[in-house]
């Protein structure tokens, strides 16, 4: 159903849980909304003013009020607990990682750091690439997010994943992509004049393609990224 609502195609393992909650709330809200609107419109039309008529003097109905309150509270508390278990699955006890990355955000680029050939992070063999992320399909990817300057937000619509990247913090997230393809990574937290367009590409590929790509990269490492000076403001848009 969600594709009719313009949802991006889901490619993550926890995406279906998120989408299911969205749909559940959707149907509850739609049913309640239609009921409330019908009641409102019926009252508005049925009880419109007519000459010689007097409204009925009713000050309230405690029993109805209690029933309505309890019903609303029950639905909402149930929703809160259902959301709570999904939240725990995603945020508190995720699966162990199989592929590891460092992501460093800065105005207005994403730096993706891959560990050296041994799979361990150590300054010498690490491979840092700007605005391009490759991951193998069906593998749990664990990322450490850091920022060099302001708060950014790591947002991959197709993965249903969004996490603010806060300077001074190392924030862990994980995902497991289930389909190969090319997707977009965007910054979702205002981070300055280059916020719009601060994006990167995410390539999900098979393990073999990924290994091959990584090997190529190690063989021909890209130029090291520019030092972390803030990007130059667009022409004339900012004072000196």
């Amino acid at each position: 159903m969600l594709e009719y609502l313009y949802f991006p195609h889901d490619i993550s393992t926890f995406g279906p849980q998120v989408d299911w909650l969205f749909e559940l709330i959707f149907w509850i809200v739609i049913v309640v909304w239609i009921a409330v609107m019908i009641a409102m419109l019926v009252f508005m039309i049925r009880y419109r003013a007519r000459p010689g008529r007097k409204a009925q003097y009713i000050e309230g109905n405690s029993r109805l009020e209690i029933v309505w309150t309890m019903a609303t509270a029950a639905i909402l508390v149930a929703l809160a607990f259902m959301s709570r278990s999904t939240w725990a699955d995603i945020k508190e006890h995720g699966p162990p990682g199989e592929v590891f990355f460092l992501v460093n955000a800065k105005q207005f680029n994403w730096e993706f750091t891959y560990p050296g050939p041994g799979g361990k992070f150590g300054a010498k063999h690490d491979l840092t690439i700007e605005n391009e992320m490759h991951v193998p399909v069906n593998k749990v990817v664990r990322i450490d997010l850091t920022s060099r300057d302001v708060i950014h937000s790591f947002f991959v619509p197709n993965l249903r994943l969004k996490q603010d990247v806060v300077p001074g913090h190392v924030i862990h997230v994980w995902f497991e992509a289930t389909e190969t393809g090319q997707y977009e990574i965007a910054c979702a937290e205002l981070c300055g004049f280059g916020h719009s367009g601060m994006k990167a590409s995410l390539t999900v590929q098979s393990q073999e393609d990924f290994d091959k790509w990584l090997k190529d990269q190690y063989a021909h490492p890209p130029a090291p990224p520019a030092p972390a000076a803030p990007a130059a403001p667009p022409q004339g848009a900012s004072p000196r």
Partner: protein
Amino acid sequence: MSSTAAVAAHGARAEHHAPGFWRTYVFSEDHKMIAKQFLFMALFMMSIGGLMAMLMRWELAFPETQVPGFHWVPEPFMYDGAIPPNTYNAMFTMHATIMIFFVVIPILVGCFGNFLIPLMIGAREMAFPKLNMLSFWVGAVAGVIMLSSFFVTGGPAAAGWTSYAPLSAVAIYTGVDWGQNLWCISIIVLGASSLMGSINYIATIVNMRTRGMYFFRLPLAIWSLFITAILMLLALPMLTTALALLLFDRMGGTHFFLPSGGGEPLLWQHLFWFFGQPEIYVMILPAMGIVSDIIATFSRKPIFGYRTMAYAMVAIAFLSWIEWGQHMFVSGMNPALGAAFMITTMIVAVPAAIETFVWLGTLYKGNVHYTAAMMNALAFVAMFVIGGMSGIWMASAPVDMYLHDSYFVVAHIHYVLFGGSLFGIFAGITYWYPKMFGRMMNETLGKIHFWITFVSFNCTFFPMYILGMAGHMRRIYNPQQYDFLTPIIPINEFISISSFVLGAAQFLFLANIVWSCFRGAKAIDNPWHANTLEWTTPSPPPQGNWRGTVPIVYRGPYEYSSPEVAEDFLPQSQSIEHSPAAPD
């Protein structure tokens, strides 16, 4: 006899104290004049905030093209009419800041609070008239400071109305230097103004109610303003503290929010939202109270559960203190905290649902009169239901992980703040206009304004929910830079065209206010046949609010269609036992 004497005495006093032009219209201590001052300041600011919104919508629908008619704007704000990213960021920052701090709160709290509290509780003035005057003028100074930031080098603040540190804390990150400083100073000054107002409101409501006006006989508008004043009194010091720390970081070399010196960026968010969550209810509670009064009046029926409504508003105010973390689910805050905030956030929908139930119940078996004020009040209910229920998605943290900082949030806040508060404001202004200005607003023009606004509002903001579902981030300058957002380009264009209609329609409202001020039909004392005390005095009320004695209250405010009397209303001040027909 005693009342005749009081009239004579008052008349004599009035002659002695007939104030001059400055004391009447500028440095007035009369709560009614101060209310009008707040109203006109806010309407002026609304036109600026609205213009910002129109420019943003142009940019989002037709990115990086020239805005027609804006070639005259000097560089670096615009380049031959095209909006650069920094200007765009400044515009959404100032749009939100102006609309929240200089439009919605000044009208709901400054205008309605000042105008209604003494008149509805039966007081001749506010508790502290001089403080009241000072409150307006300090607020006006804050407005001037905020507007002056448009003229400093670097332009106005561009870090969003939430001004998240470190973006807001270091000038080089946004390229805005004094603009952001002035933003902080202006809101600190405005906070002082609001504090003076809220102290005054609380003192007045607690101490100056007329004889018989018990707390549970107060109109719901006064209940809501009372709760609002308490919220502001407690929440504003938090914002002032945060802004002072931010200013120290910017100008004094401290590192409260800067990790480079051991500071904590999330501290800003905690401080800001601890203030911000009560603030959000400050912007909607008075509208709820106003709408309750209007719906009961035009349904000619008691409100369906008066105490229920009062308690629901108290519950919302209480819950607002323990749910600020709903804004921080993806901020990097501990997920266990997020789970706790999720539950408190869900719970606040319960009192909101009770209120909706009360409004619907009031219509039931009523005799509903569709005046322009009532239509706006009913629109408030319908839009508040949509805005409120869309909050449930974002209250669910896993779903919020997808929807956070997207247009879904933008749609939600506009359904609550425009669909809610602003329709409440339209309803309130139309309803009390005769009392404020002594003339009726034009009903036909009011209804035309209502229908155009209602339709174009929904065409503008409802599709934003769909943008949010598509993943459209808020605060981005050019959505066409993203491949995954290409399917929604036509929706963005549709929204922008609707928003231009919406913006233009507001001139009808302004025109109605100005035209009716001079040409409207003269208003009688009680044109709506309402029960509350403000309708027992001439329109507009004289100085001191009542000629003769202040009315005494015998019953609650919503005795419409009471079986005790033949008419369908029974004013609070009318004594049945001592009615003129009855033998004394």
